[in-house]
């Protein structure tokens, strides 16, 4: 104490003087965590404007403005199209940016609303006077007092304590209250008893201590700054969109350059050709896609919010879908973060109690004759009580005054043997000895009619010391060695499950043995020769929904790893209870016990499961952690520090996994931040965790994560459909311009019309695709491999662009030529007509009938052509949205008009009269219809091919069973449509060998079993595949690079397609 006084220049009795405190406050700053550098709104808004697609649009807008400038410079005043286009592009970026910002802002607000805004008060002794000050004004060396119910206002070295217990769960993950006392018990200040940490709760007792750390210099502060030092990873969807932008930009520049050359060869002047080049590049930009993606994501975010998942960052919606590893915290995430009675031991039997949150589980057998006494002891030997006025509240949710174990027992008693208050009323308390750490037991004496009843509970070994007999079938027997053995066995068994075991015993005393007001210390003398009634074990029980959620994650190919700060035994027990360590899998320790070998002789590779503690982790060589993760599919990390949690997440990411981290404590926040997606708990979660997370589960329900995964996968699939749909019309929008340049026809489709399609009519159908239900059971497929299953891959682009898009363009041109011919301009005349057609001085241009047209009349006709082409695109897009509804199933199987959204979308956008600016004629709707039909039929044939030969397109890539049999490399125009084949998820080994046939619900030949496929992959992988059950770890197995591709599959499908087409 003296040392401390000197070190901090203070007095352990009087505290600091006011002046000194003020000076130190000046020096060290306020005792508060600097809020994580809240990104200013402007920066966040700026970030909304700087995504991959947004950059593409900015570039396009700049090009438009340049082209406009060039045209103005040439004196071409007529075409302000480029200006409009630039303005529209910028508008789209800004509007979607605002939209995204608004979404983000809303969820930030939800999160902010959690924050406790009441400033914290602290009781401090300064200059010998006790006063209440704002906790932020505490300085080093201040003498503070804390009592039960307070939040510890700073890091405190405890000088004096009376039964002080703190809840460190948010810091270390220990769910049990920790005693605080002045003695130093451990080297590490995290473990020692004489330091209470900032922001932890003092549950009971009182303590006085010196402030040894404030603000950022507290333990919590250091963790928080660790979290803010962790950079954010790019979300997978952002990576996908970047990849997509690469494709788009590549194609745009390729097309632009090609036609630049063509234009130069045809003889256009250089400047004109340059304008063409720019126009083509811009025409390739899918203006509507950004809006579509934003809307799709926010729709899903909304849907998730309805299921109590708040998403802070829109893109995180999808991230959960591609998650392949979930690192979950234990306390408060997998468990309920409260103690509850798990087991009872009476009459030599272990009985399981109901630990579900809502007491919906099965109650245990209460028929034993020993039960009445045990329940009486539980009821009476308990100082906890319900807070008044909670009669209507279910027992489990009632607030209790008392420590965690006692309230667990109180609730247990209330549920199993009726109102506790009444029972206590019947047996008034005469005297009691409260629990303390030296006795490790608690005694109370009650009046029970003619007799007095002495009840005692405590650590089993201490209780046993005071017993003379034991209860069996309601009768007392003297202690015997056999019973002792069975008791010890029970203690070990329950303790081995991570449960805290308490023994209960009682003794009937003659009346008046203990007078009221007997000093508590005297009771210890009386409490001998007792009768042992039974054991009760307590645990922080897993949440009821968790085991099923974990199972679902496994079915979905997601690996769940537990990372906790709690003790390994507890961690392992909970892991086993929730299925993170599955039934039948063993840790090396288990193997050692089974084979009766010392642990050193066991090859850890033999064990599926592994519990690694923080100290073991610290001793590992770099890279060994990855090796561990690779070898053991079921991992539990215990006693880990926040830094180690971070390390684990990083190791998983190095193995190529997309990692989700769930957690609630401050100690989780760095890992939450580092993870691809951090999921924090809304109720139990600390502010730091919520700050660091991307997603917040408002109901703290781990099962919501599964919903999130499902929605994330669905949105990925549906975004794929949406994008395929949106991309298709790019070609019919671009083709007119190309023909305009090369064949010199009057421009068939204008820029404003294109914008109208992109930004008005096509938004609804593409958004409607976001509402599509999953086609196959997506939760039975493996998570997508971010390196192979791209959002937009070359086959998808090729199919959209070079097949469907070309058909659409043809429809447009057919309708265009028909409309021109019917007005008097026959196709052959139209070819090469452009220079004269666009000559503003030419007022008497002859058509095919000899009529003469003024410039304005021709202009009007050109607008008609725009309309005609527009209608053609729309009609084809109706067919397109229908074919995109399903990826494999026939429309007839899926139901043509099953989804009202598609219908509404179609109706809204395609009903004539909606775009009043255009001139419509019914006949123009008829011309493109056969082409729409052609698209439908063509795609049905393609789907038929995919369904008939589900493996065909994908079997060509058999090099790695156990990974996604996606198609590598640029897959230019595989007509089979590999991009949307079930095979992309085929590689599901282990318990759910992926048979697309079953998911598809269509009879079709199943692909050969995976391990029968000849594979040139490294042998050890294959060895693992053949061992069922081990395969989950394959996710993290390195894949051989540059796999050999077999072109055979393309050939087959190509041939098939050919025969079907011709």
């Amino acid at each position: 104490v003296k040392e401390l006084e000197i070190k901090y220049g203070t007095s352990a009795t009087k505290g600091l003087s006011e002046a000194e405190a003020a000076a130190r406050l000046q020096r060290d700053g306020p005792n508060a965590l600097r809020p994580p550098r809240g990104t200013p709104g402007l920066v966040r808004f700026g970030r909304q404007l700087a995504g991959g697609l947004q950059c593409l649009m900015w570039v396009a807008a700049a090009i438009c403005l340049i082209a406009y400038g060039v045209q103005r410079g040439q004196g071409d005043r007529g075409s302000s199209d480029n200006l409009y286009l630039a303005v529209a592009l910028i508008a789209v970026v800004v509007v979607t940016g605002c939209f995204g910002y608004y979404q983000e802002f809303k969820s930030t607000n939800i999160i902010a609303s959690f924050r406790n805004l009441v400033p914290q008060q602290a009781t401090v002794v300064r200059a010998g006077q006790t006063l209440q000050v704002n906790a932020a004004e505490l300085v080093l060396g201040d003498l503070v007092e804390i009592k039960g119910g307070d939040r510890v206002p700073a890091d405190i070295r405890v000088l004096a304590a009376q039964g002080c217990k703190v809840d460190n769960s948010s810091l270390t993950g220990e769910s049990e209250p920790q005693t605080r006392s002045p003695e130093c018990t451990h080297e590490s200040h995290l473990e020692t008893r004489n330091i209470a940490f900032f922001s932890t709760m003092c549950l009971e007792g009182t303590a006085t201590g010196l402030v040894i750390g404030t603000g950022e210099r507290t333990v919590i502060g250091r963790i928080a700054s660790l979290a803010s030092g962790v950079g954010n990873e790019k979300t997978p969807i952002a990576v996908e969109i970047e990849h997509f932008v690469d494709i788009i930009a590549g194609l745009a520049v390729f097309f632009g350059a090609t036609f630049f050359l063509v234009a130069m060869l045809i003889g256009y002047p250089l400047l004109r050709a340059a304008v063409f080049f720019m126009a083509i590049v811009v025409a390739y930009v899918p203006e509507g896609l950004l809006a579509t993606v934003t809307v799709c994501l926010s729709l899903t975010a909304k849907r998730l919010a309805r299921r109590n998942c708040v998403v802070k960052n829109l893109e995180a919606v999808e991230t959960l879908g591609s998650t392949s590893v979930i690192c979950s915290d234990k306390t408060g995430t997998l468990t309920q973060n409260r103690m509850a009675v798990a087991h009872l031991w009476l009459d030599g039997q272990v009985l399981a109690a109901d630990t579900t949150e809502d007491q919906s589980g099965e109650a245990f057998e209460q028929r034993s004759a020993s039960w009445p006494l045990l329940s009486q002891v539980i009821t009476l030997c308990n100082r906890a009580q319900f807070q008044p006025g909670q009669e209507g509240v279910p027992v489990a949710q009632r607030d209790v005054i008392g420590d965690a174990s006692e309230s667990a027992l109180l609730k247990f008693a209330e549920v199993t043997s009726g109102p506790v208050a009444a029972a206590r009323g019947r047996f008034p308390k005469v005297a009691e000895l409260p629990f303390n750490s030296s006795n490790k037991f608690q005694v109370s004496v009650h009046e029970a009619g003619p007799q007095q009843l002495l009840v005692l509970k405590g650590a089993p070994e201490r209780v046993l010391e005071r017993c003379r007999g034991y209860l069996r079938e309601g009768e007392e027997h003297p202690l015997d060695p056999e019973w002792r053995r069975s008791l010890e066995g029970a203690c070990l068994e329950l303790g081995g499950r991570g449960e805290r075991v308490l023994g209960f015993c009682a003794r009937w005393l003659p009346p008046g043995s203990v007078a009221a007001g007997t000093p508590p210390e005297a009771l210890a003398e009386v409490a001998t020769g007792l009768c042992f009634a039974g054991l009760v074990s307590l645990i922080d029980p897993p949440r009821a929904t968790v085991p099923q959620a974990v199972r679902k994650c496994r079915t979905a190919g997601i690996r769940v790893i537990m990372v906790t700060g709690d003790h390994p035994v507890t961690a392992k027990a909970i892991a086993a209870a929730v299925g993170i360590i599955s039934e039948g899998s063993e840790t090396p320790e288990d193997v050692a016990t089974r084979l009766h070998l010392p642990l050193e002789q066991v090859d850890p590779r033999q064990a599926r499961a592994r519990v690694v503690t923080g100290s073991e982790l610290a001793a590992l060589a770099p890279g060994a952690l990855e090796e561990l993760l690779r070898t053991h599919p079921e991992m539990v990390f215990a006693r880990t520090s926040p830094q180690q949690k971070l390390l684990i997440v990083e190791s998983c990411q190095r193995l190529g996994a997309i990692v989700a981290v769930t957690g609630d404590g401050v100690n989780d926040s760095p890992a939450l931040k580092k993870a691809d997606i951090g999921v924090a708990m809304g109720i139990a979660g600390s502010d730091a965790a919520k700050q660091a997370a991307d997603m917040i589960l408002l109901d703290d329900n781990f099962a919501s994560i599964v919903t999130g995964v499902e929605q994330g996968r669905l949105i990925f699939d549906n975004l794929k459909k949406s994008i395929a749909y949106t991309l298709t019309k790019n070609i019919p929008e671009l083709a007119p311009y190309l023909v305009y340049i090369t064949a010199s026809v009057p421009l068939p489709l204008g820029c404003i019309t294109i914008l109208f399609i992109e930004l008005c009519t096509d938004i609804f159908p593409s958004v409607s695709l976001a509402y599509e239900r999953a086609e196959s059971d997506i939760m039975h497929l493996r998570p997508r491999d971010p390196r192979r299953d791209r959002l937009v891959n070359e086959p998808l682009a090729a199919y959209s662009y070079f097949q469907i898009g070309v058909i659409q363009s043809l429809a447009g041109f057919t309708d265009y030529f028909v409309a021109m011919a019917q007005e008097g301009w026959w196709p052959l005349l139209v070819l090469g007509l452009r220079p004269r057609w666009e000559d503003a001085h030419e007022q008497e241009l002859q058509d095919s009938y000899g009529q003469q047209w003024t410039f304005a009349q021709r202009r009007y006709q050109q607008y008609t052509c725009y309309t005609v082409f527009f209608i053609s695109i729309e009609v084809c897009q109706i067919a397109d949205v229908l074919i995109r509804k399903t990826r494999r199933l026939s429309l007839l199987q899926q139901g043509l008009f099953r989804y009202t959204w598609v219908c509404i979308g179609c109706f809204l956008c395609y009903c004539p009269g909606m775009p009043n600016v255009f001139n419509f004629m019914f006949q123009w709707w008829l011309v493109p219809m056969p082409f729409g039909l052609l698209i439908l039929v063509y795609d049905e044939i393609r789907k038929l091919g995919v369904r008939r030969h589900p493996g065909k397109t994908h079997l060509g890539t058999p090099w790695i069973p156990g990974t996604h049999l996606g198609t590598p490399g640029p897959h230019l125009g595989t007509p089979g449509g590999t991009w949307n084949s079930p095979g992309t998820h085929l590689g599901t080994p282990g318990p759910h060998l992926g048979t697309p046939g079953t998911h598809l619900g269509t009879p079709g030949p199943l692909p050969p079993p995976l391990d029968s496929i000849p594979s040139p992959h490294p042998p050890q992988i294959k060895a693992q595949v053949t061992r069922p059950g081990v395969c989950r770890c394959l996710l993290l197995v390195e894949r051989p690079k540059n796999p050999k591709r077999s072109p055979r599959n393309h050939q087959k499908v190509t041939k098939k397609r050919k025969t079907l087409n011709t």
Partner: protein
Amino acid sequence: MARDKEKRSCGQVVAEWRAFLWDPRTRQFLGRTGSSWGLILLFYLVFYGFLAGLFALTMWVMLQSVDPHVPKYQDRLLTPGLMIRPCAEGLDVTFNVTQSHTWEQHVRALHQFLEPYNDSVQAARNAACPAGRYNEQPDDAVPNYPKRACRFERSRLGPCAGLGPHGDYGYGSGRPCVLVKVNRVINFFPGKNKSINIVCAAKGHSATTHEEDAALLGPLNLFPPNGTIDLMYFPYYGKRVHVNYTQPVVAVQFSNATANVDHHVECRLNAAGLRTDDERDKFAGRVAFRLRINRE
């Protein structure tokens, strides 16, 4: 993927690209073997061949179904356009009376334009039609029977006919002629059976300037008289059946226009039921041009 990219050095990227371009080990070009490329090429050849065939077929069917004589729709041509001759750049008739080279091109153009209107040609090809009514020639039994055209003799244009030894349409004397013609539109019946004519006037920007402009422009002489266009020149039956159709023209002679001044002249087709005030089409039923006669 993006993450990996940053880690790779430039040389590796180049090597990867080269391997992507041509991988000698697997004999792959751009990630595919030759046969794979071939098949893809073949597929697209067949696919596009099919589509091209389909397109050609549609076009053929469309051309079969289109009437070769009368277009299906004429809703864009409700008001025929008007045009002048000489059709100078920007409709700007500017010349210097004393410098013949400034107006010789105009004269040449008018000569060329009026060539088919020569009386001899007209007499040989076309019929004399009864004046004052439409020259309707219904297809009685024979569809698309060739139609006869009515005569429009050059001599009707009087001093603007450009006949005689001088034949300079008044350009040499500072009294230039400008011809106004109406665009051909099939089955166009202007004027609702009442006579139609061309009216020309100075185009002022306000009422006062209008009068001043008119004064500066001086009197206009129109040929045929009053600028009348006879109804017998309508309707037009299309270039297939109405081969020798001669477009009626009206000549405007500026007999006393002030020299060295810009004159803005507008001519309109005055016919019952014909709108000539379309804001968007400055040439629908009207034409405006600039005239400047320079003298030294």
